[in-house]
């Protein structure tokens, strides 16, 4: 689980380079400058590539924070 968390932080860091590693776990779409629709698509693509998963299109609208993305990634990785 720790490894998945670290890899997810790395994905966020690549898309939002201005966020520090400590800021990323608390990040939300509404609070991060530059987290727009293009950044969202890039973030999802990076995560799908990293974890070799495919998000359900129906879930995309709920992924608006690190926590919510973490929840979906954990589920798709079979951790919950």
């Amino acid at each position, binding site marked *: 689980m720790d490894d998945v968390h670290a890899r997810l932080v*790395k*994905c966020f860091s*690549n*898309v939002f*380079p201005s966020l520090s590693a400590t800021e990323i776990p608390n990040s939300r779409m509404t609070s991060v400058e530059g987290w727009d629709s*293009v950044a969202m*698509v*890039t973030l999802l*693509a*990076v995560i799908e*590539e*990293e974890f070799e998963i*495919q998000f359900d*299109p129906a879930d*995309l609208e709920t992924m608006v924070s690190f926590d919510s993305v973490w929840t979906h990634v954990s589920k798709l990785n079979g951790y919950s």
Partner: protein
Amino acid sequence: MRLSEALEILKKTPPPDGPPLKVSLVCGFSPLHLKTFIGAHLQLLFPERQIEVQTGLYGDLAGTLEHLDRCPVDATAIVLEWPDLDPRLGIRRLGGWRPRDLPDIVQNVRAQNLRIQRTVDRLSARMSLAICLPTLPLPPVSFTPGWRASRFDVDLQESLAWLNESISQTNARVVNHQHISWLSPLRERFDVKSEILFGFPYKLPHAEIVAELLVRLIQNPVPKKGLITDLDDTLWAGIVGEVGVEGISWDLDHHSQMHGLYQQLLRALADQGVLIAVASKNDAELVDEAFGKADMILPANRIFPFDVHWSAKSESVSRILNTWNMGPESVVFVDDSPMDLAEVKAAHPDIDCLLFPKNDYQAAYELLVRLRDVFGKDRVSDEDAIRLDSIRRAHKSADAAQEFSALPDRFLREAKGRLTVSFAKASSDLRALELVNKTNQFNLNGKRQTEVSWRTYLSDPDVFLCVTAYEDKFGPLGRIAVLGGRVRVHTLLIDVWVMSCRAFSRRIEHSCLDHLFRKFAIEDVVFDFGITPRNGPIRGFLAEFSGSPPEPGFRLSRKVFLEHCPPLYHDIRESTDG
């Protein structure tokens, strides 16, 4: 390259004072990850530049193209997909796939291709264009089963072939579709979910490949210039010293066809201007005898020099580089012996050392493909056709000059050198640009030009361009010098001056300056001189007049020039195209 790697590359800030490299990406779909990959590949190839990738309006490729005139960019990448030619060929619009719609789709595609062709034709005259034609499979539009070619498919492919053919008549460069298919299988390209949800139709690996190939077209890498080959078990199968001349082979009957194909490729490379030399540990007489065989595909007259002896290969390579007057970075060395390759690599780290895999057909074939790529060029020029002969002659004339060493003036006078000088500024003639970008030694400042910057420079009405061709009794060298600058009151400002190393030691540089002093009736020439690691020859030339190493902004008066200029024997003519 993965998307995360591309983002990492883009995160690294290039030097703040790095010059910008602006590239326009024109596509009808949302550029998203393709833009990221293009930016990352550009940054890798141009680490000192500030990369800026601009994009146009979503869904309006033809319109964006037509507005490119207003964008001052260094290069443009155009990525076409079927929906750009007719929206019904995509999956985001529901315009109809009925049988009766098909003729209208074909007609629309033809009209759109014509519109794109006209725009590309216009734009390619003033900017560098890299184009990728549709790479995605057609949606199930036609009423025929997918495995059967339909009239509809044929008509669409025919229209696309017409567009490809039309573009190839311009300066624009088109991605080779076979090469894309080699790297990215058709069924691995289309991302339906991404297209429906985000308007981005490519799977990430395909986007990365399209980006890489477009960036290669934009970069248009300088091809290698020379190939040094081993003989035994490389140019032919067998060791001639053991099996004799009759025992070596390069054909199907002796299971040595890959060596025949290698010879065939080297023959083709020689004819496109690549210099071919032999470095072999062998008996020189046996090698002579082997090249006397009538069925040799690469004849001895396409090779220069032969360096055949029993000492280290690196010594041969050194001598060959010296004869060619070429740096190791421009050369490929091919040998079947890993030890010889390692020995050459240790002595010449910049040389590209490639193994001839004599027992692996597939690997040998891939070597041929690789050689074709590293020596690949846009076009074969008149100079390419005479390069080998002119180097061979230069060698002979150097020997002759040695005989005349006490009397260099007599040698030069008897050489009967003729200079043909052209002041035409034909921006479509890329020989001048090629010389500017590949000449290192006699190069005023080492500044390289892109096609765009070169065209922009030539479009300045104040700028003159002087391209010089040379020939003497030993034969022609072709166009060997390029000089560009501006005329001011009594003064000439020289921005660009390069001369091929094949033309050294003939006082051509003196004659060029002498001609400019006379033609423009000027008193001074000011050079935009800059030191580079390899431009010693032009430094030495300028120092002949000043008596000390030249500085940036070097100025030479007519008086000083005439005082120090040696006797000149060239017959100079201005060509009528100027």
